[in-house]
């Protein structure tokens, strides 16, 4: 099969993940978009492994490592989201503006 199919799908999937990270407000939904981006990278690794016919299967092994790292990332990320929710009673990333220099307009709708 053509390699451009796989790498094109990976690029489109990465774009969808970028949209999700930028447009989502809920922290859990944001983590899902991050997962989509990681999976796009995974698809690239596997596709190039199959293209090179790598004897060491470096691409597939690195895809496995990436899955492990993504699992660790989700675990720590959800723990952080839970800690923030316990402290601030919200999981909306728009409401966490303490590090912003000046608040242009108060973000009142923290229902996320």
């Amino acid at each position, binding site marked *: 099969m*053509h390699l451009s199919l796989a790498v094109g799908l990976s690029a*489109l999937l990465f774009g969808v993940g970028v949209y999700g990270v930028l447009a989502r407000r809920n922290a859990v939904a944001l983590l899902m978009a991050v997962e989509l981006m990681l999976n796009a990278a995974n698809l690239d690794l596997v596709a190039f492994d199959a293209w090179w016919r790598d004897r060491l299967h470096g691409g597939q092994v690195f895809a496995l490592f990436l899955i492990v790292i993504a699992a660790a990332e989700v675990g720590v990320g959800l723990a952080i989201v839970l800690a923030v929710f316990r402290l601030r009673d919200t999981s909306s*990333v728009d409401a966490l503006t303490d590090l912003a220099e000046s608040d242009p307009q108060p973000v009142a709708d923290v229902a996320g």
Partner: protein
Amino acid sequence: MTGADVVFGLLGLVTLAAAVLVVTARNVIHAALWLVVSLGGLAGCYLVLTAEFVAWVQVLIYIGAVVVLMLFGAMLTRAPIGHVQDLDSRNRPVAAMAAAATAGLLGTLVVAAFKGAYVDVHHSAVGDGRELGGAIFRWFVLPFEVASVLLLAALVGAIVLTRREI
């Protein structure tokens, strides 16, 4: 245009449509369930690309564990379960533009770069458990051990972060 092309294209369409629904669904639980469809489609793509072991690990770890963790997170943070309008922030048009630019740039670049490349899925060694196990424990032992330490650190970190009193 071979059979592998057709199957991969169909699986890619399913994956992409489900991914779009993941980032546009009005309900966090629905988004998580669409994530299952998207990751399952990707597992099918891995199968077409002869990466058998990666496909099953994808099903076990992602669909089995990560999505369930996401659902736990959505329920523990009392995420808006019903249809709500404010799941998305106000910068949706800018986000759509940035995403379209990223996907367009990356897509045209890689498709132009690998236009004639052809993956011979019939003659490559199938990445089953035996092949990948040999590769990991022969050539990638140190990264494997480091990954196990990383998982342990992430586990301890998650427990420490979510405990009420230390």
